[in-house]
């Protein structure tokens, strides 16, 4: 699914609706391995994104929901995409910029970024969308990966 803000692949095959994980590292590994199995990222991405999270945590405590946006360097990426994982129970991530502050995260948006210059608008736009009242809850309430991918992908169309 292409969108108005550059080529970022969003698809049902990259969405996991029921991730069982006790820690942020476990949760990241599950979704990162899934991206590898789908050919979106190189095998090295899995460890790289886990390590990066330890140094530069990515939890974000939005008003209606805590989420995390794990990502890592483009050298580990084959194709630009964003994977979505719904955690079946809250997982504690550290807040971006304030690692001493835990965030109970309900969803992960894992970014595979290949051409950072094309991401200029994407992340800002995504942050704006996430601030929309009811948006994150609506996304989490989707019943199928197809429904979620469509709703999420459509958000980026002007």
């Amino acid at each position, binding site marked *: 699914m292409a969108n108005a803000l550059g080529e970022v692949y969003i698809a049902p095959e990259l969405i996991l609706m029921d991730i069982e994980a006790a820690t942020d590292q476990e949760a990241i590994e599950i979704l990162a391995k899934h991206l590898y199995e789908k050919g979106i990222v190189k095998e090295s991405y899995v460890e790289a994104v886990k390590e*990066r999270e330890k*140094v*530069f*945590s990515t939890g*974000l*405590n*939005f*008003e209606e929901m805590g989420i995390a946006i794990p*990502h890592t*360097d483009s050298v580990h990426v084959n194709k630009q995409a964003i994977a979505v994982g719904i955690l079946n129970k809250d997982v504690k991530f550290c*807040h*971006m*910029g*304030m*690692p001493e502050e835990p965030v109970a995260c309900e969803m992960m948006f894992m*970014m595979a*970024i290949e051409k*950072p*210059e094309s*991401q*200029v608008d994407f*992340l*800002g736009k995504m*942050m*704006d969308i996430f*601030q929309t009242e009811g948006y994150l809850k609506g996304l989490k309430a989707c019943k199928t990966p197809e429904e979620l991918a469509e709703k999420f992908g459509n958000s980026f169309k002007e």
Partner: protein
Amino acid sequence: MKRILLVCGSGICTSTAVNQKVTKALEDRGLKGQFQITQGKASEVAEKSKQFDLVISTTVLGGECHCPLVIGTAFLLGRGTEPIVDQIVEILQK
């Protein structure tokens, strides 16, 4: 002209998103043309911050910062930004 160094882990992704928000917030405060934002990596702060009036970071810094530092994560969340903007304006007007 005040110089702001805006950093995140990679120097590209998050700091770009925050750049747009900070620029708009400062222009709304009537500071258009009075500041210049440069994006960088958190790991460069120790070396580069001496040349800047302010560092805005969305992540933890590896080393020492040689100028005032503000955490800018609020700009991603879109809430709690007013006190941060106040703080930035105050530093820039010094």
